[in-house]
């Protein structure tokens, strides 16, 4: 270490000067300790914040004039986001395992008005304001007019005490110039100031939250990026076209919609019928809280049951519109030989990967069962263990050696994958990596993670099928010599929101009872056994 060829400053005076200044600089910075920048995680507050004076902040303020949109939104996942017991459990999990250094990162999307108005991520829900508990309420979206795409929810929203916000949407305000000349595109005079924003006909509005990059560089969710790099973006089919239309999962043009009143006709009889979008934002998720939204909507048991069933059908329609399955089996097979079953899954309807969304969340898998005529099962893949988990490496029954691992399992679920203590990687519940750093500390990424794709600490493993692509899985079935023909082949493409072990890891395992498995496709076939 001779240091030849390098010019070095004389250390003495420079060192003393800088070292002497450091305490002063540090003290100066520290002196600002009362600013929110220093006290990022405030202790749990015991009193709710005083409510605001701004009228159009809480979604209930919109209900009077926009009752249909309110009803759709109130039972949507946008309304449920901050109520979700799984989200709350996950947020506590990652906060406690990162020493709180993850801060408001998750809440920023789940309760944008709450966090923007200064509520701590550790604040209990029953202490939060009404607007905060609207989760992604009306104003979270309808205040947006600037392009904060890929910001992971870091965007300004109206907060208590702000001036009355301008409400943006797809129609021109009464005072705006309407370049289309079509009066249907221009609003009548409204109690609030209204303006048009092109964001409401783009994917970028959705991409401000549905593309999630953690501060330290993990690409946690990439629905927008997947869409952007796929064929739907090139055709100009955006998120709203599939998720806010009359049939979930089928793209529609706004002008194809049946015209309806976007405001209560009794209050605004002069308002014409317009193209009204579906504010249920139908996706694959649903509430795990029984009767969520029932009281807010003032519904009786029968009405709520009907609404719940309607939402379930919408969800299943969306999912079934997303994928198609084909099965190829031989007509005849010899006893004692091997039979190949070829199953192909095509992402035929989703503009992003199938499935997409938060890693570790959505499971889509193939269940393949072969039985002989006597009812004996000769092959199974995609079946569940006694904990209702798939027989993969996360299965507790597999880990305990009770049952064999399902080597042929086709599961499109994504996963968090972390770099281990010394080389190689393994999956994990969250991105906090205690193996690599016993004190996980979330800071801005130390390497260019947008460029390199992931931080050193790990990455997201993705198995989802890109739009219009097909994945094929082959199953080799050994036909027993004493099998009784014909063989019955059953193939199902199945979906559920969470793997049960994930809920147990978060400490909310009891919610697993409410998980629904939806069969997106069921195909049955018979194979004769040649003598």
């Amino acid at each position, binding site marked *: 270490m001779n240091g030849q060829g390098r010019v070095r400053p004389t250390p003495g005076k420079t060192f003393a000067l800088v070292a002497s200044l450091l305490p002063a600089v540090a003290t100066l910075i520290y002196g600002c300790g009362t600013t929110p920048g220093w006290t990022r995680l405030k202790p749990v507050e015991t009193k709710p914040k005083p409510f605001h004076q701004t009228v159009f902040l809480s979604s209930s303020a919109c209900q009077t004039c926009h009752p249909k949109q309110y009803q759709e939104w109130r039972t949507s996942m946008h309304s449920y986001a901050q109520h979700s017991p799984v989200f709350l459990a996950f947020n506590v999990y990652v906060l406690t395992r990162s020493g709180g250094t993850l801060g408001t990162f998750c809440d920023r999307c789940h309760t944008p008005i709450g966090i923007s108005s200064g509520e701590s991520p550790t604040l209990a829900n029953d202490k939060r304001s009404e607007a905060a508990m609207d989760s992604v309420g009306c104003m979270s979206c309808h205040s947006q007019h600037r392009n904060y795409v890929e910001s992971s929810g*870091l*965007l300004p929203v109206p907060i208590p005490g702000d001036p009355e916000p301008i409400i943006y949407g797809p129609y021109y305000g009464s005072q705006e110039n309407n370049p289309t000349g079509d009066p249907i595109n221009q609003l009548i005079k409204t109690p609030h100031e209204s303006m048009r924003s092109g964001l409401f006909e783009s*994917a970028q509005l959705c991409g401000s939250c549905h593309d999630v990059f953690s501060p330290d560089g993990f690409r946690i969710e990439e629905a927008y990026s997947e869409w*952007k790099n796929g064929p739907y973006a090139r055709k100009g089919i955006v998120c709203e076209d599939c998720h806010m239309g009359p049939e979930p999962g089928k793209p529609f043009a706004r002008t194809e919609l049946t015209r309806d009143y976007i405001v209560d006709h009794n209050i605004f009889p002069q308002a014409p019928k317009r193209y009204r979008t579906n504010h249920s934002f139908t996706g694959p998720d649903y509430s795990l809280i029984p009767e969520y939204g029932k009281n807010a909507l003032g519904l009786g048991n029968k009405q709520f049951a009907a609404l719940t069933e309607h939402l379930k059908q919408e969800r299943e329609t969306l999912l079934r519109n997303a994928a198609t399955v084909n099965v190829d089996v031989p007509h005849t097979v010899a006893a004692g030989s091997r039979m190949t079953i070829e199953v192909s899954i095509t992402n035929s309807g989703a503009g992003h990967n199938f499935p997409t969304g938060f890693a570790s969340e959505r499971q889509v898998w193939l269940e393949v069962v072969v039985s002989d005529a006597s009812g004996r099962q000769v092959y199974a893949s995609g079946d569940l263990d006694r904990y209702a988990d798939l027989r993969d490496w996360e299965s507790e029954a597999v880990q305990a050696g009770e049952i064999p691992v399902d080597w042929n399992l086709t599961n499109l679920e994504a996963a968090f994958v972390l770099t*281990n203590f*010394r*080389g190689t990687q*393994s999956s994990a519940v969250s991105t906090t990596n205690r193996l690599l750093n016993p004190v996980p500390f979330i800071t801005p990424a130390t390497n260019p993670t947008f460029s390199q*794709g992931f931080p050193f600490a790990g990455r997201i493993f993705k198995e989802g099928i*890109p739009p219009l692509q097909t994945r094929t899985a082959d199953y080799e079935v050994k036909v027993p010599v004493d099998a009784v023909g014909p063989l019955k082949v059953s193939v199902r493409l199945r979906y559920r929101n969470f793997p049960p072990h994930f809920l147990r890891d978060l400490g909310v395992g009891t919610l697993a009872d409410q998980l629904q498995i939806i069969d997106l496709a069921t195909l049955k076939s018979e194979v004769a056994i040649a003598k």
Partner: protein
Amino acid sequence: MPYSGRMGRCRTRTARPGPIAALLGAILTLCCAPANAITLFGSNFVSPGQQWDPGLSLFGEELAPRLDVDGLVRFQVLNQQLANQTDDFVTPELDLQTNLQLTATQRVYWLWRPFEYGAREPTYFHFGNDHGWTKRFSETPQALFYEGQPFNWLSPNDRVPLDFTLAIGRIPLFLHNGLWFNNFMDGFQLSKNNIQIGTFSNINIMYFLTLGEDQPGLNLNLANRREAEKRVMGFDMNGDWRNYFFEISYAASYDNSKLPGLDQNLNRGFWAVSITRTFGFNSGVSLRAMGSTGNGTAGAGELAVLETQRGVWGQLLYCNVFGATNQWKTPSVSGSPLSQEGILFTFDRQQATPELNLRGHGTVGNAIGVVLDPRAPITYTPEFGWLIDNEYTSNDQVGLAFQIQADLAHVFIPGNTLSEMVRRGILYGALARLTLLGVRNENTHTAGDRFDFGSMLELIYQF
């Protein structure tokens, strides 16, 4: 209430602000700061509060400026017998990281390590007859780069996916678990994520060009300077397919140095392939192979590495094996490619410690260890390693290591609830690590056989 009254608890004596007292004062003061990145300007980093909207845009993205500072303080106390010489050091380290966030994707990042010239050239106190401080100060940033997606505005309706990322400056680059590239490069990277080809849905491709590299721990003779200043351009591609993660890289170097005097030809090619398969929580296998092609025999060779890890009865076993030919080289000038493969192979960037040969070429080696109770606040890791040196100056080695790591905040305030987390407050970020090392060297040539011993205590505080 961990966030109140901090100043009152922190007493720093600065009546005679000599350099050492000032340094200690600074460190003590910084240790009193809360355990999170500090926002100096703009909307607070992962904090409650409104986002600042200056109403401007940069390359089509909304400008949301924010300036954060974070980093770590580390004290290393080292006692060792290395190459038949006994030494005791106290080595402080300060890493300051500054992040200027410009937009959602664009930022400028700066890493500054003021009290060192670079790796293995720290400020330190040496005990013994010639005891005293060796003081070093450098104003040169260790890393300084811009990264962002500056092309999206060319397709505002997203009809064309122009989400290419550009990174330019002095950039840390770490590929194939550091075996292939592990250094700070001066140059740029141009990359594209989310490329969809068939059922591959997660392909990232990066092109990089280095105009030179940092020179960590190198004896800066003419040959090494030429190595560090050679230009390297390459590609790295990675993605998921079925249950596997693959990473493929290729790079070519060419000697653009104007330094005279050496005949060695630095024009080489480098390739690398890594395949990783995970098996649930705590278990995984990685197979890595890489090689270099040179003109003639200089710099041509191969390395193969098998990394395995498995959770057994709540413990974490790992076993890594490697073998390399004599002339294998990395495109990176880094002299410590095997640093991630075991405690015994770890390159300490402050002081040379007893270690197994971590340069790789001409050796076959193995590290096997177990992390006991890996989820607990205190973990214990015994490790055994060996290395057979096939090079002319053969130095076979066998070693033992034992490492204890303690998350001090969890030790003093145990529990995983929110209230315990809030109570830990500024204590979070403190880590104590004790490492004991013993290496037996059997040298068939001039140096002879010897034992190296070392004990190292590190106190680390992240802020």
